[in-house]
């Protein structure tokens, strides 16, 4: 997601972008049409004649590279990419642009170091890729557990964001109505994934990606049109309207003091590396039929992310230039309503309805992908490989997978309802930090280092995960700050809000130390066949 940023959108302004009567209903109608059409297409396309794990987890791996790239883009971009990033840029100028860029840059790591070798060694999950050369049970257990943790953090953040959107978009101010939105989206997510698996998730994410791009391009063109197609005029105007003058596009508006600068570096490190270890991104890489197609998919995703990053910069600066920073801050101090304000200023009710629907569709598509990934980890890694020792039948694993979707969905809905009015904006950053600290080191070592061992994998994942979680619990995100999760207590002894700066090096270090000093496998686990698959991209092609 761009993931990018913290949905939980903290929308604290009085502005309602749709009138309580007519426009609300138009958002409902358009979103319902989107949901119905997706269901209809998924039923039409369902020619499966029985339980099939490949179909449920990987959509039979029939997607062409460009389509998979587009869907991967849809899976990665959260509502925060559409709403949060332009908002941050409109308020913070240069600092916001730097913040937005890192998750797009990270696709170079996915493309060059991960996509092809991962596709060649994994069937469905991270555990599969590791178990190719390491001892299966421990790595399936730890990889499955880490995937579940990341997925739950992410799911909760997304669903809380859905509730936060209910007030400004639909005019639902009461906590009951907001929780109703969270429950409805969560139940839709469960319905889609239980009955359609990866096929319906793909459809949701593909349609959402097209709509997201359409909205982004329309707003970008509208902004440029307002400034006579002259980007220099746009930049100059944004500086004037920001109230900061030239300082608006210089470092230091958001990250001024020593601690916040370190926090920015930590967050950038997590975002720059984290995408390459996100379980739902890795799962999507396995939905094409070869490592070469995985490479082409990720190429498209990387370029689309960069393109959307440029659009976010245009939209963010355009909002400041056209509306003025003071107006944006007065509406929501977080800036998360910037896109709605900008769209409203264009006087197009249809576009405003479309933006509102895309925001909800984005959340639905992202949570569906994450839920499927978490269910796959629970059913395939933990049930199939750890509990059943790899001897579970397809039918029983599929049943467990569908039950897991319900279980994970209900857990995420419950957590999100509880957290609806808590400040949990650190959760997405934490998910990226865990991904970069626990999963990325393990995957890179497993694919590229012949001395790597099972002990190294377990230490790296447990150490990276544990360090990231403990540091966040001891950070100002959880206590000791008026904006913390628990503002009335103070046990914040770690000064940074994102743990990546410490936990990522620890994850890599533990993987290395535990492998080098592993007495059971002193020269590393057998790397020959993995190396052939990694280097030559041979293996796991669709038969």
């Amino acid at each position, binding site marked *: 997601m761009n993931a990018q940023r913290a949905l939980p959108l903290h929308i604290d302004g009085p502005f309602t972008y749709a009138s309580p009567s007519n426009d609300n209903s138009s958002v409902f109608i358009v979103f319902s049409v989107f949901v119905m059409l997706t269901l209809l297409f998924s039923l039409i396309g369902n020619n499966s004649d029985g339980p099939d794990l490949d179909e449920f987890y990987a959509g039979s791996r029939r997607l062409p590279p460009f389509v998979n790239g587009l869907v991967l883009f849809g899976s990665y971009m959260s509502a925060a990419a559409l709403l949060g990033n332009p908002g941050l840029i409109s308020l913070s100028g240069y600092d916001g642009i730097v913040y937005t860029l890192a998750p797009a840059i990270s696709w*170079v790591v996915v493309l060059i170091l991960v996509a092809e070798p991962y596709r060649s060694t994994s069937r469905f999950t991270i555990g599969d890729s590791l178990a190719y050369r390491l001892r299966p049970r421990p790595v399936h257990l730890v990889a499955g557990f880490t995937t579940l943790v990341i997925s739950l953090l992410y799911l909760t953040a997304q669903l809380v964001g859905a509730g936060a959107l209910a007030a400004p978009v639909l005019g639902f101010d009461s906590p009951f109505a907001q929780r109703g939105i969270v429950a409805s989206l969560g139940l839709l997510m469960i319905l889609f994934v239980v009955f359609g698996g990866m096929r319906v998730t793909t459809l949701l994410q593909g349609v959402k990606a097209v709509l997201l791009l359409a909205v982004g391009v329309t707003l970008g063109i509208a902004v440029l049109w307002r400034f006579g197609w002259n980007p220099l005029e746009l930049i100059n105007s944004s500086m004037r309207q920001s109230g900061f003058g030239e300082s608006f596009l*210089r470092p230091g508006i958001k990250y001024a003091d020593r601690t916040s600068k370190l926090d920015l570096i930590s967050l950038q490190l997590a975002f720059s590396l984290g995408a390459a270890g996100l379980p739902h991104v890795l799962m999507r890489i396995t939905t094409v039929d070869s490592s070469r197609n995985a*490479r082409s998919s990720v190429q498209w995703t990387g*370029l689309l992310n960069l393109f959307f990053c440029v659009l976010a910069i245009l939209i963010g600066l355009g909002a400041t230039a056209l509306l003025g920073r003071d107006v944006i801050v007065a509406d929501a101090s977080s800036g998360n309503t910037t896109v709605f304000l900008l769209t409203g200023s264009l006087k197009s009710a249809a576009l405003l309805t479309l933006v509102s629907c895309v925001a909800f569709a984005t959340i639905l598509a992202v949570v569906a992908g994450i839920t499927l990934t978490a269910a796959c980890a629970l059913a395939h890694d933990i049930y199939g490989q750890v509990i059943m020792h790899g001897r579970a039948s397809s039918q029983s694993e599929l049943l467990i997978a569908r039950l897991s979707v319900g279980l994970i969905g209900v857990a995420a809905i419950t957590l999100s309802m509880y957290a609806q009015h808590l400040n949990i904006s650190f959760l997405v950053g934490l998910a990226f930090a865990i991904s970069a600290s626990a999963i990325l080191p393990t995957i890179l070592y497993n694919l590229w280092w012949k001395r790597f061992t099972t002990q190294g994998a377990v230490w790296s994942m447990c150490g990276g995960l544990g360090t990231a979680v403990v540091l966040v619990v001891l950070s100002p995100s959880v206590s000791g700050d008026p904006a913390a999760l628990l503002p009335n207590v103070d046990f914040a002894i770690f000064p940074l809000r994102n743990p990546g700066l410490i936990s990522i090096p620890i994850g890599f270090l533990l993987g290395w130390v535990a492998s080098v000093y592993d007495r059971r496998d002193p020269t590393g686990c057998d790397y020959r066949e993995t190396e052939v698959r990694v*280097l030559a991209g041979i293996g796991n092609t669709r038969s």
Partner: protein
Amino acid sequence: MQQYDHSWLASQPSRSTLKTLRTARKRSSRVAATVIGAQLSTVVLAAEVPGIMSHPIVDPFNVGLFLILMQIGFTACVIIWYGRYAKKRLDPASLRFAAELKQRGDTTHSGGARP
């Protein structure tokens, strides 16, 4: 863990093809590290020496904005470059390697995850 016969890897053609692939992969890995390094360097420079990053180049661009634009362009170029590089350098060697495997009748690598 199930063991496979890897004696075919000792043959000269296989070793030479693998060496070619190793070298080609190392080069692209360095490029990936450079992109991430450039991004993190920009952030560290902005945090530590904001004065330099604020230095104007051409109105309204300063060093920081210029580096961001360069980073976006550089990253896009690397993504496109890698696709071409892989087609030109990695794919032919991979196909050669696959043909060698096929010639030896090795079915271990034909597909499917290890059970």
